[in-house]
């Protein structure tokens, strides 16, 4: 059996999944003062009286690192940066302990300025003196040639507890994002390690010592050991949990928009044949733009508890939330109150809901029923408009080849998959007013925990080959090899796939055929002096985010269970 645990703002949801589907589910309040207690309480309750050898592992999605960043509760981390021609590296300063040292690599991986080791040592000493324990190193174009980052690491390693290097965090270009990502890894490291170390230790003590996995923002998982080297990948995993929990219930061969209709917001994502669309670059949190892979999600300020008001004869829904619906004792009318007036909701104070909607009706000069209809309709239409906007955004991503420009696939979702509190009512109305087919996620209230439990281990890998220099490298894996002449793109792809699968297994992938995708594959003839001297190849591959194959029957059980 597998445990899935997702920490939300108010509740922590935990499920135990096994042959029968959901074997057990637990909801514990998330006490802001003690995330640890919530996680531990959840794990303890879900495993009560179940022998630990029946549980293969637990997957956790927490708000730990996210909150730590948002609240600014991070230990100081040092950054050492090498730059070269281009933007002023001062623009990317991460804080007080940010040092730019001489040394530069160009776009083709050539050293154009030697590393100033004296400056490295001096900066390292200054960081050490300031009490820094965790350091990040990022160089411009280090993914083309990590030599400077590696050398700085050698110099720094005796002096600091943990060091992160830019070329390991992602194979993608963007020096500013590499700096931010490396810095965040160094910053959240201690918080992350201490927290999960404590969870693991406490579980061991209680005799429920199952291996721990951690959910990432791209909807994939990594094992605890991997997370120690890439702790920032746990940032913003929340939105991914629900999307992954929906996947098993999406049509296998359709383009689908997932709508998670909550109290304050509706969160959206797009699935193509059951595979979520990833954000083009990486997560953005506070002032940090990163290279941390994430699902392309969008949040809009329309939900069941959005405040409804009238301004100059126009009806507005959200984006603010003043509290729960009036039917549940809130101060302002909401779409949920409209549902009460329409007789579509129960177990609340219908009269209070009507009073609220009537106040809106008076301003519009309509009956309470007509007003409730309008509120409900408008909420649905706004959600549909935003969904269309997300689709347009994905379709307007630039392409760089003639083939893609002329024949490139434009997504056109035909299905809506709805989850969240008011999902049943909204699903019905969305179907009536749009051309989409609509379905709901069963057990929507624990879909996030289910998604967390069933997700695969994912990772990405970039491979660069140069048949003129006769070298091939995959910086993230610290892979570097000499090539024989005649190396082909097919061989490059095969090599990338092997490295990717190896990486995935090391990071916790279960034994199974690992599904991979080629995200980008380019091969250029390098011409110098009107003569072809070699080929420049790039292959970018990923383990496709999705559910672990052998658990699909569990998802099937959950699906059938509700019918």
């Amino acid at each position: 059996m597998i445990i899935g645990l997702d920490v939300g703002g108010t509740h922590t949801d935990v499920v135990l999944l096994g042959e029968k589907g959901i074997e057990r589910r637990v909801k514990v309040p998330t006490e802001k003062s003690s995330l640890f207690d919530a996680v531990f309480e959840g794990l303890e309750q879900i495993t009560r009286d179940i022998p630990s050898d029946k549980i293969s592992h637990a997957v956790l999605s927490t708000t730990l690192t996210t909150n730590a960043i948002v609240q600014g509760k991070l230990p100081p981390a040092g950054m050492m940066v090498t730059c070269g021609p281009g933007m002023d590296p001062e623009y990317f300063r991460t804080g007080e302990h940010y040092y730019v040292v001489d040394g530069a690599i160009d776009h083709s991986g050539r050293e154009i300025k030697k590393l100033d080791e004296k400056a490295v040592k001096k900066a390292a000493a200054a960081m050490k003196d300031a009490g820094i324990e965790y350091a990040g190193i990022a160089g411009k174009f280090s993914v083309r040639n990590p030599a400077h980052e590696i050398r700085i690491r050698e110099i720094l390693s005796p002096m600091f507890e943990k060091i992160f290097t830019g070329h390991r965090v992602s194979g993608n270009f963007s020096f500013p994002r590499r700096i931010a990502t490396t810095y965040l890894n160094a910053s959240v490291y201690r918080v992350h390690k201490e927290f999960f170390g404590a969870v693991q230790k406490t579980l061991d003590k209680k005799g429920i010592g199952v291996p721990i996995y951690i959910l990432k923002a791209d909807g994939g998982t990594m094992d605890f050991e991997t997370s120690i080297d890439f702790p920032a990948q746990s940032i913003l995993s929340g939105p991914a949990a629900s999307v992954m929990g929906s996947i098993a219930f999406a049509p296998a061969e359709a383009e689908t928009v997932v709508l998670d209709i909550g109290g304050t917001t509706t969160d959206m994502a797009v699935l193509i044949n059951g595979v979520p669309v990833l954000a083009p670059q990486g997560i953005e949190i506070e002032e940090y733009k990163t290279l941390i892979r994430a699902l392309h999600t969008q949040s809009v300020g329309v939900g069941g508890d959005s405040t409804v008001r009238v301004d100059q004869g126009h009806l507005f829904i959200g984006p603010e939330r003043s509290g729960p619906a009036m039917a549940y004792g809130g101060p302002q009318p909401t779409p949920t109150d409209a549902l009460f007036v329409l007789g579509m909701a129960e177990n609340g104070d219908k009269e209070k809901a009507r009073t609220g909607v009537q106040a809106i009706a008076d301003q519009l000069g309509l009956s309470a029923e007509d007003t409730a209809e309008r509120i409900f309709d408008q909420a649905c239409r706004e959600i549909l408009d935003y969904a269309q906007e997300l689709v347009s955004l994905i379709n307007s991503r630039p392409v760089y080849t003639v083939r893609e420009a002329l024949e490139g696939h434009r997504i056109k979702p035909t299905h809506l998959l709805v989850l969240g509190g008011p999902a049943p009512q909204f699903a019905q109305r969305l179907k009536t007013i749009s051309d989409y087919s609509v379905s709901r996620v069963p057990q929507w209230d624990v879909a996030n925990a289910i998604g967390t439990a069933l997700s695969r281990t994912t990772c990405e890998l970039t491979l660069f080959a140069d048949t003129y220099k006769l070298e091939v490298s995959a910086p993230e894996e610290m892979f570097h090899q000499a090539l024989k002449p005649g190396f082909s793109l097919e061989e490059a792809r095969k090599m990338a796939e092997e490295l990717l699968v190896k990486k995935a297994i090391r990071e916790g992938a279960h034994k199974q055929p690992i599904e991979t995708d080629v995200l980008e594959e380019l091969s250029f003839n390098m011409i110098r002096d009107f003569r072809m001297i070699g080929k420049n190849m790039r292959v970018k591959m990923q383990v496709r985010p999705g559910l672990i194959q052998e658990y699909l029957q569990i998802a099937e059980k959950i699906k059938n269970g509700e019918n």
Partner: protein
Amino acid sequence: MLKAKTSTGLVFFPAYDWAISATHPEREERLLYTQDQIFEEGLFDIEGIREFKAEVIDIKDVQRVHFCVPEPEKVMTESHYISAGGAKTIAKAKMDGLVKTGFALVRPPGHHAMRVVHGGRGFCNINNEAIMIEYLRHAYGIDRVAIIDTDCHHGDGTQDIYWHDPDTLFISMHQDGRTLFPGTGFSNETGGPTAAGTTLNIPLPPYTSEEGFLTVINKVVLPVLQEFKPDLIINSAGQDNHFTDPLTSMNFSAQGYADLTALLKPDIAVLEGGYSIESALPYVNVGIILAMAGVDYSHVVEPEYSASQLRQGKSITATIEKTCNEVLAIWKDRENIRVRMQENVLYDERRRSVFYDTDGFFESQHETLHVCMECAGTYKIDSRADTGLRVLTVHIPRKACSNCIQEGHRWFEQADMTNYDMIMLQDRPEDQYLTKKK
């Protein structure tokens, strides 16, 4: 927070699956290292810099500018639709107020493509800037436009298209035509009788460096722009004046290009040539983008740059000063030149031969302009190419007077079809394009 002072749009279309031929300078790899540098700098993450997806151009947009023989589909490759489309996309973003300024980093280039197109010249088949400008005039009611061509090669195609248009100021600064393709662009090339002075050419001696280019901008381009008062300034932003370019002999730099852009403040820049794909383009493009956006570019310095080695000699400076003065004199005297050229001339004729170096054949043209006092004048070109095709093309200008409109239609209707394979009419006032075939 890093923020652009001027909101800037970019269309980046490197056409990674298109080349003129396998080892041609205009090949797949051309913008690869530029992309690497732009992405690595994180330029698209700067607040106020926005990337747009290139659209595909309509044939109608092409026919507003060109007479393609025998038809657009035959002289264009697939990549041209997107390259010109990219310029159009960025122009729309500018006009719709999404950005203040924009740069179409697209290939293939276009500034050697003339009004009549039988094939490829100087790696160009259709003129991206002209197609964009005529679209803007049609869709947004833009009138006066200035095109500043800073490619190392004379922008003979753009010059040809606007030779008779007094509302389009075309200034080209380039390596002296005696030393480089296409061999034209001398200071005495100043436009036809109805538009004399709105074409200005500033040939520069080989080894001109930063000082020389910036002198031309400050002494000629900026004062002329100030007087001309264009609605839009377009920069044909070729990058082959760079000291490492393999096809040319100039000594310009990334800092120089950025300074030039900061001075010129173009509304829209469109990439033209530039074939030093590793040593120049990555740095020049980053410099231009930062300059457009008003972000500090002082750290954009090529690894191989050396100010002292690139400094231009005194004789070069003197030659440039002299040329600048000549060109300024032409600009100041343009009304008189026009009067002189129009005196006692009802029809102005020119005959010339056009070389299609990329495709390897010649075309001979016989052009007849109605020297009109009311408008730019309608004109026709009798064109015969080595491909065996002979066509008659008639252009009625955008703001043609009723006489010129009638004359254009008469030429189109009454031409002897037995002499031509095709007769085409570009009726700009009606925004229509008509074709008659044998």
